[in-house]
């Protein structure tokens, strides 16, 4: 049986405010999906909900992994089960070296049963692997001694996210605007890495506003989110249409979702 991440009629609220209003999405391992949609439509919210952010409350619907309901799991469990998200805005953890953090993370994800305080993967083995991956991403190995995302440039953060994905080798990866902030060469490198790690090993959800990542990671499916719902699904041609033409056609075709979008934006204004 193919391994599957399945999201069914998912409703998510943040601080009591409804954001996702019935998302359906099925990703099989080995598939690449693109998720597009205007700013504020709920793409990152979907990522956080799937990853298990406690601030994103699932008010109804389900998230299942290979048939098992995971909506109640915390982020630790989900990560150890093979789900990964590259953050749109990664968090800085001052004083914690990237290498130390990553050694911990890698050990935990590779041995999901590991108990706190148990042995980490041997230093030499870890170093070797990390150095290889960093060279591949053309990152200076000194970088591993820096504090996690602390003072990283926008592009450095995104590279570090890809590096983490490469080390953790997830089954399902959500890449939330990993291409933004990267220079042209870096986007190319990142695309290659994703293709290489991904291939048929990962189910990937690429959230993006651009075409660069998709060039080398041609999506099997493209989804459009509007007003907290996936309103249309197509192939790569849909992605091409959206980043050239914009969302006018979509808004016109799905007036209900467009209204929800207005409502979300309106609430935002009220709150300010």
């Amino acid at each position, binding site marked *: 049986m193919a391994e599957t991440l399945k999201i069914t009629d998912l409703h998510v609220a943040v601080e009591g405010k409804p954001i996702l209003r019935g998302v359906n999405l099925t990703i099989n391992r080995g598939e690449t999906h693109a998720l597009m949609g205007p700013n504020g439509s709920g793409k990152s919210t979907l990522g956080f909900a799937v990853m298990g952010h406690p601030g994103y409350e699932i008010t109804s619907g389900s998230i299942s992994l290979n048939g098992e309901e995971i909506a109640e799991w*915390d982020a630790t469990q989900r*990560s150890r089960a093979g789900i*990964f998200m590259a953050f749109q805005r990664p*968090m800085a*953890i*001052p004083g914690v070296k990237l290498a130390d953090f990553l050694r911990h993370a890698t050990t935990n*994800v590779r041995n999901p049963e590991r108990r706190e305080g148990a042995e980490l993967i041997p230093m030499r083995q870890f170093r070797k692997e990390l150095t290889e991956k960093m060279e591949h991403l053309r990152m200076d190995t000194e970088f591993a001694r820096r504090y996690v995302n602390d003072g990283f440039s926008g592009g450095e953060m995104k590279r570090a996210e890809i590096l983490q994905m490469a080390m953790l080798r997830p089954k399902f990866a959500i890449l939330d605007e990993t291409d933004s902030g990267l220079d042209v060469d870096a986007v190319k490198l990142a695309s290659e890495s994703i293709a290489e790690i991904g291939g048929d090993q990962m189910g990937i959800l690429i959230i993006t506003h651009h075409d660069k990542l998709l060039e080398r990671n041609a999506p099997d499916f493209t989804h459009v989110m509007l007003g907290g719902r996936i309103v249309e699904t197509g192939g790569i041609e849909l992605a091409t249409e959206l980043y050239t033409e914009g969302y006018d056609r979509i808004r016109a075709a799905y007036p209900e979702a467009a209204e929800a979008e207005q409502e979300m934006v309106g609430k935002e204004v009220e709150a300010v």
Partner: protein
Amino acid sequence: MATDVTEENALGEINKYDFVTPSHDVFKAEKGLNADIVAQISEMKREPDWMRDFRLDSLKIFESKPMPKWGGNIAINFQDIYYYLKPANEQGRTWDDVPQEIKDTFDKLGIPEAEKKYLAGVKAQFESEVVYGSLQEDLGNQGVLFTDTDTAVREHPEILREYFGKIIPPTDNKFAALNSAVWSGGSFIYVPPGVKIDFPLQAYFRINAEQMGQFERTLIIVDEGAEVHYVEGCTAPMYTTESLHSAVVEVIVKKNGRCRYTTIQNWANNIYNLVTKRAMAYENSLMEWIDGNLGSHLTMKYPAVYMMEPGARGEILSIAFSSKGQHQDAGAKVVHCAPNTKSRIISKSISKNGGRSSYRGLCKVEDGATGCKSNVVCDALILDPDSRSDTYPYIEVEEQDVQIEHEASVSRIGEEQLFYLMSRGLTEAEASSMIVSGFIEPLIKELPMEYAVEMNRLIELQMEGSVG
């Protein structure tokens, strides 16, 4: 008898320091405090008259001084404490000379092992007396003195009397007066001109008995161009009643000398830890206090550096960790008495499970001390809504031509940081531990390797059981 450890265990607050050694006291003074008891302590120690008189005068000062009205809530019944307890007849020169059960205690604390690996000398104090002492032979040959302070009173009175009670007189504060009256043990160090001691000298202070007061007295004299690193560790088992630890530490660093004084204390939750520490730094010398405060019911401690001559420097780095039932009122004092002196204070505090940490600091620049620089950074990290942190910085500047910087920050462990780490497979406990160790990293990296490891381990112990 340690009581009620099971509940504590469930909270993960109990650790390897919580054990009681069944010991056979050689002598235990009666409970309580009065002139007779003070005179008796002096007599037991066969002290010269000047010291007995110093003690008795100090007792009067103690009795005349009110309790400090700031800091923490001190609820001590001074008549309910044992002020002097002699655990062994003589100080051992080898560990085999030390009574077995006391030796076992220090074995468990890892002292003899550390001594073999990386220490130049050791003093181990159990209750009121130093029970073991060593110093590398070549250091002795170079004229380095490292004894307990009682021995120094008898054997090195000429050096000791010049400085004893001069940096911190009994009139300084109520607890300095108390210590001056009933002091016992502590380290005396003299480093002759130009002698640089490469490895640390370490003292370990262990309170074992219930309702015990430990009042060690330490005096360190670093002569011109000399260098020393002194380290003290402190622990006690958990009892239901309070014990008191009230030390006085005086340090003199002469021209071009360097002294680093590192404290790693991990007191049980029932200890009042009220300590006065002060150094006088002379021309172009450097005094560093590194202070790791874990545990205790209440700690009030503000290591001070008085920069007496041009070019003197003072650095104070402190970490405080307070958990349930603990209040760390810790800080630092720097006083610029001469031109072109420099000071730096970095203080980091962590509060969890309802613990309370306060930073209380003074930066003072006297009139005429031109060209001074002082930099103070204090950061507090609060792990949960029940915990608390306060900052009380005092700045007194009587001179225009100075440069003073003060930064303070308070942060809470962010849900976003936790989530980020957990989304990479760390448990919530591992994630908060990691955030905490990152928070103190800028201080830890200043410590020699062995102490950095020890400090990290202690913080991890404190973090255990912090979640769920």
